[in-house]
């Protein structure tokens, strides 16, 4: 039986998220691109599609530490990966240091960093002291960051993804405490815990906070309302951050970071390929991904309505083959098309 757990995955220039964040401008002539965590949706097939289209660092969905360290079925459902799933940040929902340290010990051999979710606004999590509740509990958050960094040092990267406070100076103070505790980088979502996503992200706040903590030398990543590479550049130029994390924008268009303004058909073919090869995506989840991508591609409305009525994955495959040219991996031109290749395009 295991007395000594497997070693933490070695960090090199290829997979060290902090190195990548700091060096992308030199190596790629652009800031770092990050695919953020989405509850339910950032599963392995989708992560791989994002990587294919220039996402430098990719997150898992939030995994609850409490469940992960106690329940093997939760582990099976929450975390799947493979050799090409790197650089990978496992995002964790946690409200105490003990669970976090145990969680870190279990996932560290299979990822390149851990991100503490301090931004989730879901009330069921907030009531447990998880997610955005943590930005109002700086003592606990700093203690958790410090505990992980004291144990692992530079062998394991640790990030915190926070929301802003109504009083931005409170956020600045929190960031200083996180820097003191040894956090590797901070991601700032430019909304408060009660701001709806329909309200534009507050770039002024991100700029204010970034300016104030710049002397600390800890990279800052901006998150919120990045739907195209124009948005990406605008956010970088305005706020002075080190990189941008896209989340909702990628769900509709996983090729966003490759400068596609709408989802190319090739991304959808790739997603089908990975979803089938890796397995494990429930039908409803598969359907939701395709629905989001088709929204971006402006699929003909009657076909979109048909799509949403499909009840099984088998029917979904048949529907695709009936209406479109859906290439498989061994076919010439797989994942290269941009426009929707209708088989029977409507004249409407």
């Amino acid at each position, binding site marked *: 039986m295991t007395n000594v757990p497997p070693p933490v995955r070695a960090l090199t220039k290829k997979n060290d998220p902090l190195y990548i964040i700091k060096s992308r401008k030199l190596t790629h002539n652009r800031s770092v691109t990050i695919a953020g965590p989405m509850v339910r949706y950032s599963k392995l097939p989708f992560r791989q599609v994002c990587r294919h289209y220039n996402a430098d660092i990719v997150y898992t969905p939030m995994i609850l530490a409490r469940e992960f360290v106690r329940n093997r079925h939760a582990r099976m459902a929450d975390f799947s990966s493979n050799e090409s799933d790197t650089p990978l940040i496992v995002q964790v929902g946690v409200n105490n240091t003990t669970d976090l340290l145990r969680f870190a010990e279990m996932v560290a051999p299979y990822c390149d960093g851990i991100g503490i979710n301090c931004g989730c606004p879901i009330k069921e999590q907030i009531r447990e002291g998880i997610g955005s509740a943590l930005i109002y509990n700086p003592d606990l958050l700093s203690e958790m960051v410090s505990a992980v960094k004291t144990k692992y040092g530079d062998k394991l990267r640790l990030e915190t993804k926070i929301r802003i406070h109504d009083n931005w100076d409170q956020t600045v103070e929190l960031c200083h405490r996180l820097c003191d505790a040894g956090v590797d980088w901070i991601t700032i979502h430019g909304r408060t815990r009660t701001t709806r996503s329909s309200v534009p992200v507050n770039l002024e706040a991100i700029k204010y906070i970034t300016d104030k903590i710049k002397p600390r030398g800890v990279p800052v990543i901006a998150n919120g309302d990045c739907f195209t590479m124009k948005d990406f550049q605008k956010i970088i130029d305005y706020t002075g951050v080190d990189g941008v994390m896209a989340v909702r924008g990628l769900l509709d268009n996983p090729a966003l970071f490759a400068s596609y303004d709408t989802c190319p058909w090739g991304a959808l073919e790739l997603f089908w390929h990975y979803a089938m090869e890796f*397995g494990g995506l429930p039908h409803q989840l598969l359907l939701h991904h395709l629905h989001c991508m088709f929204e971006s591609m402006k699929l003909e409305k009657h076909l979109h309505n048909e799509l949403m009525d499909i009840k099984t994955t088998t029917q979904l495959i048949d529907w695709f083959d009936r209406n479109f040219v859906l290439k498989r991996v061994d076919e010439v031109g797989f994942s290269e098309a941009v426009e929707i290749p209708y088989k029977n395009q409507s004249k409407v």
Partner: protein
Amino acid sequence: MLAKRSIIPKMVTEKLQNLHISVPSAADDVKAVSNSSGRPNQALTKPISLNAETGELMVRKSTGKTKIRKGQSSEEYENERNHFFDVEKGPVWTPVGWMMTANEDLLAKDHSDLGPDLTLKQVRHKLMGYCHLLYYRKRFQDCAQACESLIAQFETVESRKRVQKEIDELKGMLEHSRAKRV
């Protein structure tokens, strides 16, 4: 309230008496009151650590009632950790091609005695995923064979009602595969 207190161990209740329960709410943040976007009940809770070694916590619900989140002893954690590393071999590992080898083996075996636990949803979905992959790859003959094998196995699962939807999908896939394998 009394009934609730009685289920908390004496040692814990003694500790609780000395604790200051801090339940900050949106009202503490003056601007947040006007910035709650019309969402009711935005109360926050700070969990209170009852046992740092086990991670036992007390959280307070919006109703004001407290709730204990049980801790995990070192022994319990070590069991889980050992199971994760030694038996599960880490997270579910799925490189391209894994499903063909893993599931061909599973389907080749006679599952009447020692097979995978088909009462587990994850196990059934993994096997169905194999059929989906064959169907997606247009390997209709192989898909039909796999479907037939799985239907027979799923039909033996106790509380068949739960798996009926999956059996129905397999039957549909079998029918379509037979029609297309010409």
